[in-house]
């Protein structure tokens, strides 16, 4: 009987131990997982490294997801709604978000537009100068506004003759030449190719608009930066790695990223790289220019 009781006692102890172990395992299961970070992008050749990293699975490994919008304006809206943690945007979006109180900082530069932002028209520059009325199509809440301002100022056009029409790039890309209208379009790669095929002619671009610098970077909330410093450092390394790989093998990268760029032809894809300069490792020149426009550079990751 003593042996019988001993056996029962041992079995009970084991069961109690198992239950405690189960509770321990259960409690460990509830540990919070690594937070997913979302980055909002839109079709722009300068964001190709992000598309490439996504397709290569580099972003998945860091638990970073990519949301693809049609325009910077929509990306900005998503950010302001709190739907994304980061956006790939120009300095225009950066300043706009600062203005409405967002605590946002750039952590990495991607590229500088070197002809990638373009002013198109169905008229020549002189015809426009002499025109009574000009219909300017642009994405008002974007870098387009800075480009057209610079264009107007540079070519001394009469602001009062111009009617500004706010449209996103998809709408602009759909525009057809109206012979009765003096049309002025501000667009960027890859939307320009469609428009140029429709007969619009290029009047200016960031290549020859020397008074303005258009720079793209990764913008992020400062708190998110503090909470995910390690991950973002790796993210920066991925950006650098992706740029290197894209530069080395454009053809391979094209297959992966073309769907993010409205399936632009390969030759346009190649040409597009001529219209930007990679600034992931920023040059002194660009840093000086950014300083001039109060673009924060102290949070840029290295």
């Amino acid at each position, binding site marked *: 009987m003593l042996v*019988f009781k001993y056996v029962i006692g041992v079995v009970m102890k084991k069961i109690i131990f198992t239950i405690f172990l189960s509770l321990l395992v259960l409690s460990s299961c509830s540990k919070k997982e690594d937070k997913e970070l979302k980055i909002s992008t839109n079709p722009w050749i300068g964001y190709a490294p992000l598309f490439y990293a996504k397709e290569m699975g580099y972003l998945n490994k860091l638990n970073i997801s990519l949301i693809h919008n049609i325009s910077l304006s929509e990306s900005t809206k998503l950010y302001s709604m709190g739907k994304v943690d980061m956006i790939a945007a120009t300095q225009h979006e950066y300043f706009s978000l600062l203005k*409405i109180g967002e605590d946002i900082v750039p952590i990495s530069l991607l590229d500088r537009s070197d002809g990638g932002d373009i002013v198109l028209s169905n008229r020549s520059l002189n015809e426009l100068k002499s025109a009574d009325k000009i219909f300017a199509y642009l994405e008002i809440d974007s870098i387009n506004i800075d480009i057209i301002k610079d264009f107007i100022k540079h070519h001394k056009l009469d602001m009062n003759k111009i009617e500004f029409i706010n449209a996103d790039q998809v709408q602009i890309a759909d525009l057809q030449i109206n012979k009765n209208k003096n049309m002025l379009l501000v667009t960027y790669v890859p939307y320009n190719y469609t428009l140029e095929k429709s007969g619009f002619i290029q009047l200016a671009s960031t290549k020859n608009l020397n008074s303005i610098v258009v720079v793209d970077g990764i913008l992020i909330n400062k708190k998110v930066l503090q909470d995910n410093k390690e991950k973002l450092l790796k993210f920066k390394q991925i950006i650098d790695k992706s740029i290197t790989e894209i530069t080395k093998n454009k053809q391979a990268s094209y297959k992966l990223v073309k769907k993010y760029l409205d399936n632009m032809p390969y030759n346009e894809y190649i040409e597009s790289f001529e219209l930007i300069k990679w600034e992931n490792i920023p040059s002194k020149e660009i840093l000086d220019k950014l300083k001039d426009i109060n673009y924060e550079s102290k949070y840029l990751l290295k």
Partner: protein
Amino acid sequence: MIKKLSIKSFTIISMFLVFISSGYLFYQSFLDTKNNTRILLEENIQFNILNTKYYLEKNLNIKNPNRIKPYLNNIVYTNDIIKAMTILDTKNNIIYQTTLSDDFKHDHTNCISISHIIDSNIFKQNCYTFSIKLFNKLEPYYYHGIIELDSNYLNIFVKNKIIKYFSFFLIYIITIMITLWFIINKVIIHPLEKLRQYAYYSTKIPRPFFINEIEGIRYSLEFTFKRLKKEQDELFHLSTRDPLSGLYNRLSLIERINWLISKGKRSKNNFAVLFLDLDNFKNINDSYGHNFGDIVLQHISEVLLNVVRDNDIVARLGGDEFVVVLTDVKNDKEILSVLKRIKIELSLPVTYEQYTYNASCSIGISLYPKDGITVTDLLKNSDIAMYKAKDLGKNNFQFFEETLQLEIQERMKIQTLMIDGLENHYFELYYQPKVDIKTNKIVACEALIRLIDPKTGIIPPDKFITIAEENNFIIPLGDWIIKQATNQLRIWNNTQFKDIKLSINISIVQLNNNAELFETIKHNIKGIDISKLDIELTESVLIKDFDEKLKIIHKLKELGLSISLDDFGTGYSSLSYLKTIPFDTIKIDKSFIDDFENNQDRSFINMIVAIANELNIEVIAEGVENKKQLKFLKDIQCQQYQGYLCSKPLPINKFEKLFLNQL
């Protein structure tokens, strides 16, 4: 030391742990649901604000704000969690507010930007702000929107969730606990309790159990108990039965007789105890071996079982001793009937291989309650009666009588006295003169052993010699006699008594142990005149193993001793003895002398003396008590006599005095 914990306590602890773990899981599940709900609500708000912002940035016209009203109203009215929306201009003036309630007070100082919605607690945050970017040509300016959440709705929503989860948890945990308790009780506690009872009482075997381990214990217990029962039965059988015969053993017999005594006290029933002892069984073992002895014992067992009734008891006490208890005996006839059957059945020969044996037994009978009211008395008395039956000639039976008891007591007393006698000098040699008939002078004497009880005086030899022979005490006693007698001769040497010849009697038991006897005599005769020592043997000692006896007689003769034939004429009186054995003296038995006046006896005495004279053997007449007898003996030329006419046996000092007086 193992800390004991009942299964019920264990179950309660387990259920408590299940309660805690389930509560924890439910709480986690609730938090998860709440979080998912939060995300859905946040996404709902984000979605509505995103659309509103997009709509307003495209359609808000300062000059005609009414365009936005239906849109904003639709959003608020179709969304339960949005209580109101307010649009403020650059100077925080209200452009439009969706609610017209007077008690609605807007305080947007506690509102946070919609971009921080993920970090906020939607269930506690009442409002969020969002910017509306408008352009005057190319110059941006900002309006603000405020979205008010219906905190009441959210609170009720959360409360409902809590109540729902808590209710579900309670139902779940109560169901689980009741089910768990029922199952544990049914498949563990109840079976273990049954096993405990089974292990404690080992009576009713539980039916097979559902749990494999418990069933394993039940099966092991059942197997063990069955084995123990079997071993117990075997041990009981071994403890109550005689292994050779299968009959009851002594222990069992005592138990059963005690039961009969108890029964007899109530019902006045009588019973008889028959104590059987096989006659000469030792000879069977010695002659035919123990195997045959065992066969005989088994045969006897079967015979006894066959002759008694089913309710009678047959037991073997050991060796060749059996006891039969005849229950409910009405009269002696019934006993005699059984005795007769036993005798008849036992008379049939037992045959084994080449051996055949005709068994007989002596039976002593004691009756309850007449001869004893205890087992001990009944067995003892039947044993006494059995010995009496043996004394009466074996193959016989004897009912116990009170006189037998006295005999036994006397016998026991003498036995005890004898054992102590050698050390305490209770034994003494008496000397009876042998007188030369011609000279009427004492020429010899016979040393006769006497046992003197310090309380009652002299005990005659016929009372203790037989007992001494039966228990072999005669050997040390005989040695003592030889030593005393030879010492006496040694003392007499070179004295006036130096010519006296001294006779000692040698028992059949001593003679059977001839080697030791020879050595004893040889050892003790040193330093004495050996011609003065005479050994008296009766005829009876010579009957068995004659050749062996003759050898020792010759050896004694070679030492120089003389040999007398005692009590001649009472036994076989074979003349061949006189021819074969070198006797020096014949002692005519007293019975002839007593009846010497009878012609026949006179003739016998004459004849004996004549033959002895012819054979040159000395003749001594025993038991001579008067002068007529002496005259007759003198007439027929008998050489010596012994008897009361001269003297009865005397202590040494008196004998010596008598001897000296006749000089």
